[in-house]
């Protein structure tokens, strides 16, 4: 499948999305309602009385959760009254009324989730020039500055890795791009990464909180993003969301999931993936096999998004160290929500050549099998395998087994988690942070961040010559061990001295807190938390004689 063909613009299947939208929504509604009704009917007549399958339970679960959520947010829009009313009426409702209510709910949440794709916006965003898009991120008062800083945004986001194979897979089947997740800037970053790699745009689920930024929201709404409201935790909403994703894949819409779920707070390469929507990959493929289309393939493309500096680093690491990651699962007041910080991001971070690198790995099939260059699934021994056989029973028919499919998805997740370190790209900031952290840890006799946070500032200076030598050694280790990742390909020839100078510049100017500063012939760590954050990108490299 991979060939010598010249790279051409990938087919943008999202161009037909708006025409498909009502059909997709109707399909989602039909499937979700049918499944719930079938489950409810088997509950009422079957021997196993699973109360959670009853229609009454499903509706009550929605009402209970919505009331709880709206009461907590002091809803003033009257929605609370609607849910309380439903809760009161529920016991007296006939089966037909319950079914009608269910249909209405599924339709409502479907419309809440569904995305949009406006080809005009896409052409504007990608064709007219990313500089315009970038400028829109900034307030009008900063228009000129933003425009100047973002003139060459496309040069700042650099795609790398198995691009030709990904392009070939996009022609043969449907891509599911699965990147690491460290910033709310990931969506636009990988969007431009795909564009620069001549890969097609994808639809993707974005947290509803991201739509509060008017500029980002405008583009996300019109470039194929659909809304995921993480506050809605009841089964019906999850069913609608998963079905929507499944239907999109079955209809050939390239998709993007962040398997890590929310942004990684620590900046450590994700090891434990939440998987979530990734599970719809197996379901979609199973449905396609059942419909007689086993050769319509799905390809899961691992990717890492590697920033020289991360916009929200300060909030994320504070949150991580405060161990409040769970309670603040949805952070709404970080740098992403402050337009001024975003302007800074574009001006200072993206002004640096190659400051964001997106590296794509070899795709897997939905079961975590490797694929050949021709897009065929192969097992660990390198033999061609029929992926359809994974969802067929002994009689050759497709069988439904949610637990089996979840296990397949976990197997896929393990493959992704295992390959992410290898796909990691290190910027100068990561290398310097790691070397400094190693040296301070060596002196303190511990790598425990909480203990290192108590080290006196006077003990946090490291001679510049030692740092440069340490960076030399770290670079050598990385070069010898591909499973650790790789240096930024654009800066492999850069001397360690220049690399350190570049990192100091980055780590001392962007964040509100200076991380590292030069004092004479030494580098002083001024912010241990942020140093820890940036060194964490190398955390999968065993501690050795680096510093």
């Amino acid at each position: 499948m991979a060939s010598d063909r010249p790279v051409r613009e990938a087919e943008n299947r999202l161009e037909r999305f708006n025409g498909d939208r009502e059909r997709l929504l109707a399909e989602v509604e039909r499937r979700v309602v049918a499944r719930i009704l079938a489950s409810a009917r088997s509950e009422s007549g079957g021997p196993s009385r699973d109360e959670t399958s009853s229609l009454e339970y499903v509706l009550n679960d929605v009402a209970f959760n919505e009331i709880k959520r709206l009461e907590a947010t002091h809803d003033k829009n009257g929605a609370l009254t609607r849910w309380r009313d439903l809760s009161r009426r529920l016991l007296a409702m006939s089966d037909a009324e319950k079914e009608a209510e269910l249909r209405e709910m599924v339709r409502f949440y479907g419309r809440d989730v569904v995305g949009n794709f406006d080809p005009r916006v896409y052409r504007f965003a990608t064709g007219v020039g990313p500089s315009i898009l970038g400028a829109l991120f900034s307030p009008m008062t900063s228009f000129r500055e933003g425009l100047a800083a973002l003139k060459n945004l496309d040069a700042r986001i650099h795609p790398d890795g198995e691009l030709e194979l990904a392009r070939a897979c996009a022609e043969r089947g449907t891509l599911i791009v699965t990147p690491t997740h460290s910033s709310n800037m990931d969506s636009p970053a990988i969007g431009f990464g795909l564009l620069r790699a001549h890969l097609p745009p994808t639809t993707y689920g974005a947290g509803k909180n991201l739509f509060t930024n008017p500029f980002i929201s405008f583009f996300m709404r019109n470039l194929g993003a659909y809304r995921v409201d993480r506050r809605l935790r009841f089964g019906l909403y999850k069913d609608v969301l998963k079905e929507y994703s499944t239907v999109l894949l079955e209809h050939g819409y390239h998709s993007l999931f962040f398997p890590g779920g929310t942004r990684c707070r620590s900046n450590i390469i994700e090891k434990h993936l939440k998987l979530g929507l990734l599970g719809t990959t197996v379901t979609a493929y199973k449905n396609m096999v059942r419909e007689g289309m086993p050769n319509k393939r799905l390809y899961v493309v691992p990717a890492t998004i590697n920033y020289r500096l991360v916009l929200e680093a300060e909030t994320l690491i504070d949150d991580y160290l405060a161990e409040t990651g769970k309670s603040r699962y949805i952070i709404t007041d970080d740098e992403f929500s402050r337009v001024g910080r975003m302007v800074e991001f574009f001006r200072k971070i993206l002004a640096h050549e190659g400051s964001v690198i997106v590296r794509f790995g070899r795709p897997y099939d939905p079961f975590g099998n490797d694929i050949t260059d021709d897009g065929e699934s192969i097992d660990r021994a390198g033999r061609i395998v029929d992926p359809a056989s994974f969802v067929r029973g002994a009689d050759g028919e497709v069988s439904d087994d949610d637990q089996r499919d979840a296990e397949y998805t976990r197997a896929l997740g393990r493959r992704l988690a295992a390959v992410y370190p290898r796909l990691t790209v290190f910027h100068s900031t990561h290398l310097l942070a790691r070397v400094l952290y190693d040296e301070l840890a060596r002196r303190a006799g511990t790598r425990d961040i909480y203990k290192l946070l108590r080290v006196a500032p006077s003990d946090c200076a490291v001679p510049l010559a030692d740092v440069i030598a340490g960076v030399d050694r770290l670079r050598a280790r990385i070069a010898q061990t591909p499973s650790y990742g790789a240096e930024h390909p654009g800066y492999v020839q850069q001397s360690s001295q220049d690399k350190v100078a570049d990192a100091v510049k980055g780590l001392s100017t962007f964040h509100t807190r200076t991380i590292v500063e030069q004092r004479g012939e030494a580098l002083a760590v001024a912010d241990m938390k942020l140093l820890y954050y940036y060194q964490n990108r190398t955390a999968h490299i065993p501690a050795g004689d680096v510093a």
Partner: protein
Amino acid sequence: MSRADVVGIVGAGRFGTALGSVLARAGRRVLVWSRDEEIVRAIEATRSCPRLPEAPLPASLEVTGDPRRLASEARLLVMAVSSTNVRDRARELGNFIDGSHIVVHAVGALASPNNERVSEVMQQGLPTLKIGVIAGPALPADLALGEFSSMVVASAFDEVVAEARRLLNAPPALRVYGSNDLAGVELASALAGAYSVALGLCDGLGMGAGPRAVLITRVVAEASRLGTAGGAQARTFAGLAGLGNLLVRASDRSADYQLGRRLADGVVSADNHRTEGARAAIAGAELAAHLRVRMPVLEGVAAVLAGKAEPREAAALVGDQVASEE
């Protein structure tokens, strides 16, 4: 009969033949694959397996030398080969099966040469992900004679456990229980071999019933610690695959137990690592060091096997360490 209802057995060794015999007597269709043409011919001609001569085989038990036939006629396959052969056999079988097959192994040891769990080795050689293990205190001779036996089948896939239980359960001769603790059952089963060496040493040294009981109790505790550190469930080690396996192997019918006794008697030299239990002891001690889990009994056995300690010294040391640490 649908291939969903056929049991395929890989290997006509003692366990595979005994299991096939029990299942065939219970009315299942069983097809045994052996690479050894002589064994295939012998079974077909004499209804007896050269490796399990004491048990006549039922007429309905089928045998073949063709792995393609095995794969096409049976969906559930039981890999009943030695730990030294499992890698090659999985790779060979993998040429004929697909993602719909279920493969359960009955190897109560770690796979050589790298001492990996057998399911991990099978994963590298087979195209299917639906892999499991069956383990427990079921000796081939007991099975073949229809004595009461119980085993546990474990897999991350509920379907594997359910199908294996449906097809391998043949009461009263064999009852099969289920678990989702694949790693735990594999590790418990492998360590049971290692601890059989310890019990052989204990008995060979003439230690009494009290110390023997203490030893058994302690090995269950320390195996549970290692298992938990490795992601397994502690209770698995007190179940059929762990304690059950240990108790049945601590008899003269077990090569591991006999090795322990011979080491105690000074009949064999310390470098004798030929049994699977001896290899599991060495590997388990290495794993314990890697996971930083203290395992005095296993380390003692490994030290004796490596010639670093005399059996009586090791026993005394183990007793001291257990007393001071627990």
